[in-house]
């Protein structure tokens, strides 16, 4: 068990997504470059590009250059197919993600070694709701950011407090049937700030969540858990 049950659901989730994007980008650009020196030059720079979105932009530009430079319709057909396939793969990465749950922070709801399907876009339209599970980013103790999964307990303006081991929201005790029998929760009374949410891992004993890290910025919500595999 990692120290303090740090909820490292899956540092690799977003890194795996980023690696996939880079692999797709390199494959697409290499195919598009063919024998062209300049095409290969653009591919070679890909290793330096940081950030998923920057990789997508670099690749799009590279395909455009290939298109402008290409002489034959056959070449252009190759570029068009490569571009379309890349767009499909990359778009799906932005919409849905698959994450691997490596910690017990959400037990018994999510077992260690489970996989989670995350909706990265849809939840932004409806907004986060009480009780939903979210993959989110926490700042780690050493300044490094970690990704974990937690349950949304408080929205901006909610008053959260713990009495007799039970979580209360706006004066009313929460019914939390998903917790292990006999679970007691301790927390500091708190009003959730605007643009932030209050989250708790279901495995209250070990989870690292808002009790120790405070309110989570809504921007740090990566996606809503849709399916637990």
């Amino acid at each position, binding site marked *: 068990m990692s120290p303090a049950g740090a909820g490292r659901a899956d540092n690799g989730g977003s890194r795996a997504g980023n690696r996939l994007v880079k692999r797709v980008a390199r494959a697409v650009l290499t195919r598009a470059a063919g024998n062209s*020196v*300049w095409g290969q030059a*653009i591919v*070679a720079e890909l*290793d330096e590009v940081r950030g998923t979105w920057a990789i997508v*932009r670099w690749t*799009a*530009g*590279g395909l455009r250059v290939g298109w402008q430079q290409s002489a034959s319709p056959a070449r252009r057909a190759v570029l068009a197919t490569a571009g379309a396939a890349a767009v499909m793969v990359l778009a799906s990465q932005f919409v849905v993600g698959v994450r691997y749950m490596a910690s017990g922070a959400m037990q018994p709801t999510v077992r260690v070694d489970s996989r989670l399907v995350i909706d990265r876009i849809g939840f932004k339209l409806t907004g986060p709701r009480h009780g939903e599970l979210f993959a989110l980013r926490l700042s780690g103790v050493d300044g490094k950011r970690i990704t974990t999964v937690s349950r949304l307990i408080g929205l901006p303006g909610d008053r959260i407090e713990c009495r007799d081991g039970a979580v209360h929201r706006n004066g009313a005790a929460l019914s939390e049937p998903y917790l292990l029998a006999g679970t007691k929760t301790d927390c500091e009374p708190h009003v959730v700030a605007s643009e932030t949410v209050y989250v708790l891992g279901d495995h209250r004993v070990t989870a690292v969540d808002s009790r120790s890290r405070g309110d989570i910025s809504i921007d740090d919500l990566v996606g809503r858990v849709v399916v637990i595999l």
Partner: protein
Amino acid sequence: MPRLPDTSPQTLKVFGALLAEPAGWRYGYDLSRETGLASGTLYPILIRLAERDLVETRWEPPAQPGRPPRHVYRLTADGVAHAQERLAAAKPSPVKPSAARAPLGAEPMGARS
């Protein structure tokens, strides 16, 4: 469209970045970040300049084994002169008296008998 070649703002940005270090070889990604130009804009400019021998290119062996060699760019001697000229021409010139105009305080037009 600019009337003269190499006067577009994007091309001037590339000239500016390359002139900052005229003797040094520059990486494509660094130029992209420094000029703020996307790859789809930057590379056509570099390609055009290279075709006209204003920019020279070469492959630089990788710093670490296993990485690909990187393509690097720098202005040729012609390129330096050309870039400086284009950049100077693009600056708005300060108002100054020119030899062709009558100096201030001269007789008003039409006053000569």
